[in-house]
């Protein structure tokens, strides 16, 4: 039995438009998705803003009712057995809100221990253990208002783990944290997963997903557009190498011409200060470097490099297609 089983899960929101003539319409945030997560797996839900990641998580943790389809967590239905699900899952979201500012970190943890029915005797040990794990020992008696973003995020994680959940849901946990903090966070999450906790993580940082996740589902426009291990996704989608050309003053006509070349699957331009970076993704096995460079004609060209496709390339490709 999978730990998380999702079948045809759908969520619509009623929304209103206009002030004078109010028309109601429905927004379909999640349009019938299927996936499953096995015990101990670290599963990533990847997608751009508004793709339906958070809505999916909120249905799985019983905060939102699905409009259609079904979802089971640890064998419990998220609608019929909401309380059983709540008892056994942990939920952490990114950003620096969702904490009681006027209470100390310790009191925040104590409060949620009560809500999750952690027995008083166990509480002390558990809280100390978690503070140690997220590196907040010694700061726990300070009020949260004085915490940095990174500290808040770590406190959030400790909070989510108080009741030793079997499944942990992390909704964009690394948002707004500095690179060092984000790396520490990844280490923590990897450690949890290694210790046997099933983790479902949403993010839009590719390297994060690439580094952490056993399997990934890419979600765009409310649908899952691809699913598999990071390596599978890269192979399936991109396959060929990526050519990057630094150039000065490329016209859009040139890019269009490159796109038409045989063996080129996509071409995009990023602006880098004075220069432009032309990213050309080749079809598997195709060799396009000389043909592409020929198209540049008299345009001044800087560094040229070829690399293996990254998960980001796969992701861009998938989202473009969807």
């Amino acid at each position, binding site marked *: 039995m999978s730990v998380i089983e999702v079948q045809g899960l759908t969520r619509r*929101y*009623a929304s209103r438009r206009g002030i004078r003539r109010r028309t109601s319409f429905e927004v379909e945030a999640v349009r019938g998705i299927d996936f499953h997560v096995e015990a101990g797996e670290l599963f990533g839900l990847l997608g751009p803003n508004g793709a339906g990641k*958070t*809505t999916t998580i*909120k249905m799985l*943790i*019983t*905060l*939102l*009712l699905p409009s259609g389809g079904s979802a089971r967590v640890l064998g419990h239905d998220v609608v019929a057995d909401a*309380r059983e699900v*709540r*008892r056994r*899952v942990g*939920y952490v*979201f990114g*950003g620096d*809100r*969702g*904490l*009681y*500012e*006027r*209470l100390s970190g310790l*009191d925040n943890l*104590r*409060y*949620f221990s*009560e*809500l*999750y*029915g952690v027995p*008083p005797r166990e509480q002390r040990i558990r809280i100390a253990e978690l503070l140690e794990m997220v590196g907040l020992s010694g700061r726990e008696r300070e009020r949260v208002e004085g915490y940095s973003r990174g500290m808040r995020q770590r406190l959030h994680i400790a*909070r989510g783990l108080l009741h030793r959940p079997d499944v942990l849901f992390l909704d964009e946990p690394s948002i707004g944290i500095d690179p060092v903090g984000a790396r520490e966070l990844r280490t923590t999450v990897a450690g949890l997963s290694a210790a046997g906790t099933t983790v479902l993580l949403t993010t839009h940082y590719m390297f994060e997903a690439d580094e952490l996740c056993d399997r990934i589902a890419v979600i765009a426009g409310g649908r899952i557009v691809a699913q598999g291990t990071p390596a599978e996704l890269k192979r399936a989608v991109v396959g060929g190498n990526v050519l990057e050309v630094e150039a000065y003053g490329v016209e859009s006509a040139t890019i269009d011409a490159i796109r038409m070349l045989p063996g080129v699957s996509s071409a995009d331009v990023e602006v880098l200060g004075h220069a432009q970076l032309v990213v050309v993704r080749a079809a598997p096995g195709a060799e396009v470097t000389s043909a592409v460079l020929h198209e540049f004609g008299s345009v001044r060209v800087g560094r040229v490099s070829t690399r293996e496709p990254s998960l980001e390339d796969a992701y861009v490709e998938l989202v473009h297609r969807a």
Partner: protein
Amino acid sequence: MSIRTDLRIAFVGGLTSYRALFNWLTPWVLVPVFIVQPLFQVLFFAFVGRSAGLADSRFYLIGDAVQYASIPCVFAMSNTIADERNSATLPLILVSPARRLPLFLGRSLPVVLNGFVVSVVALVLGGLLLRVSVPVGSVLPLTLAVAVSAVSCTGLGLFVAAVALRVREAATLANIAFGLLLIFCGVNVPLTALPGWMAVIAHWLPLTHGIAAARTLAAGGSGLGAVGRGLWTELGVGAIYLAIGLALLNYFEREARRRATLDVA
């Protein structure tokens, strides 16, 4: 989850969330709002009564001191519930398996105590300044009447809190509740001097029966037996608002899951 868990959620959790969400717990607010203001409300109306050539100071002392309990009762209650939304902790509360009845009911306990203490302080200080004395034998029953009033007023507070959670105007609603209680509950104007329809409404508001009982007791000569009925009615009225408030919270939670309201999504 056991009853013990529920009790801990109510008592320990209730106190924690009061500390967490009621942002008045600093001397800079406590002294002006919980001591100076109620005292001056007592003095102001006592002098207004004198200038109108009306009832004695005792009438206003009891009325205004007891009515002022509604400030902590309504404001603290709506803060500790409605502010979950502002601090984005509401989703976290709602995904917890904690039973909602002890969760929300527990938050009223510190509030009741707060309202009670504020009233007692206003009674004592106001009594000293206005030279109103209460027979020694009446002190305990009077205290009980004040406590009962604070309990039932907190029931109204929970109701306001539930509405405020949805409409996001906690302070405005609490102020309006305070104003209505001031006008209707026989605080400064006896029910007999109110237009008939107002007196009818007054019977369905908290504080009305509590203040009446407190006045009877403060006058001396009658014990709890004489006001027992009034105090039970007071509790009953409070319980009605409490029940409606809890039902509303329950309804809003289900609504939130269905329609993504309350910022849970």
